[in-house]
């Protein structure tokens, strides 16, 4: 019973095996990819392991506190930011091993030519609740 974040990157992850940008796939390949992702989420819900899944727009802003009584300071977007998050899935699983297994399956989503992308996903454990019994 631990939650993990499976993090997808637009940029910043190592190059996948099947490294063709999505806008160069056929429409059928895109549909197959989307279907795979939807099926994966549905299957996780049926196994009682799904928590959340979200996609992010690629463009955002940097924002910081502007000082007392001033509006926030904004900057960017920076086209060259090294690490760019595309979205995530949150799972609730019984073991670290299971989290890796599911990330492996998600990474098998089909891309160009209908072949698995082998996308590198970042797997990050949540900091959970403190156990009550410690001694």
């Amino acid at each position, binding site marked *: *019973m631990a*939650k993990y974040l499976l993090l997808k990157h637009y940029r910043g992850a190592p190059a996948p095996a099947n490294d063709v940008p999505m806008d160069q796939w056929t429409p059928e390949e895109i549909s197959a990819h989307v279907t795979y992702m939807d099926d994966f989420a549905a299957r*996780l*819900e*049926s*196994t*009682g*392991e*799904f*928590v*959340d899944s979200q996609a992010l727009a690629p463009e955002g802003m940097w924002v910081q506190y502007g000082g007392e009584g001033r509006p926030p300071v904004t900057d960017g977007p920076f086209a060259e930011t090294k690490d760019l998050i595309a979205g995530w899935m949150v799972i*609730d*699983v*019984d073991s670290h091993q299971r989290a890796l297994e599911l990330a492996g399956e998600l990474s098998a989503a089909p891309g160009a030519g209908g072949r698995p992308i082998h996308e590198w996903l970042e797997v990050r*454990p949540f*900091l*959970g*609740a*403190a*156990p*009550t*019994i*410690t*001694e």
Partner: protein
Amino acid sequence: MTSSLDEVLLRSLTPSVLGVLVRRGADFAAAEDAVQDALVEAVRAWPADPPRDPKGWLVTVAWRRFLDGTRADAARRRREGVLDREPAPGPAPTVDDTLQLYFLCAHPSLTPSSAVALTLRAVGGLTTRQIAQAYLVPEATMAQRISRAKRTVSGVRFDQPGDVATVLRVLYLVFNEGYSGDVDLATEAIRLARQLAAVIDHPEAQGLLALLLLTHARRAARTASDGSLVPLAEQDRGRWDTESIAEGVDILQAALARDRLGEFQAQAAIAALHADAPTAEETDWVQIVEWYDELVRLTDSPVVRLNRAVAVGEADGPRAGLATLSTLDDSLPRHAAVAAYLSERAGDLATAAGLYAEAARRASNLAERDHLVRQAARVNARRSG
């Protein structure tokens, strides 16, 4: 929930009502749904019209719900030959129904998270929504986890004796790994452990109940007003719940007198020794080390060995603790935290500060991470001060 309805009393009837339905021949999954419906109906109807016989009322309503559900699926009724009339009373149960439900919900074929969810629903009488909120997952996910768990145990015969150890493990998990939500899982675990200890004659069931009571007794002292963790040695012992401690000690003594030691009794004995010390300095660490020796023998768990190193450090001095620690795998969770604590006690502040920072990076939960970061900062301040 209105104040005129005791929700815990209502939920405490769950396993016996469910047991009656299963004894009458209802399949477990459908019966469990029917009992949930009856509980919801009771919450609605009882405040205005409280029944004289609450359990009888629940059985009647749940059975009707079960039959309605069965009738709605006529094909299934024919296939399974379920009767739609009031049944003759089943054979007198040889083993307590409540106990059988504990066994079923903690069946070894279930994963720990499934067993926890099913136990909280079918034995605890909590709703799927409450359980989902308690474990911070969507209700739909929890509903699937529970229905999968029911399917997994659908072939298990209800009257087969089960494994007490798996039941105890599930209750321990409910107590120890619960988030804090609307449902107080620690209190719920104690209620379920108490109910279990009442229906089974087993020293480890008593040991677990004692452990939970003795640990729970410190709850108010365990966190500061800002939510940060307060280590055992720094807790205000005046805030420990003496009633809970007294009950835990009594139960533990009765269990130990039976001379069938197990890991929960040994853990409870350690908790009792802490509870017995008026101040942290007066803790009987020598006896605690002896109990850890028993625990190592019983469980051979690396986590127990780690905690034993802390106790050795208190009993025989930090150097002895560090020597014990050096025999353990340093990839163990909390290894760096223990090493940091013992190093500071041994006067090696530079090492301690580095280890506290490392321990914070490796912490698996937020409260512990924050605590360890503060420790690192405190030791660094000591070094420069």
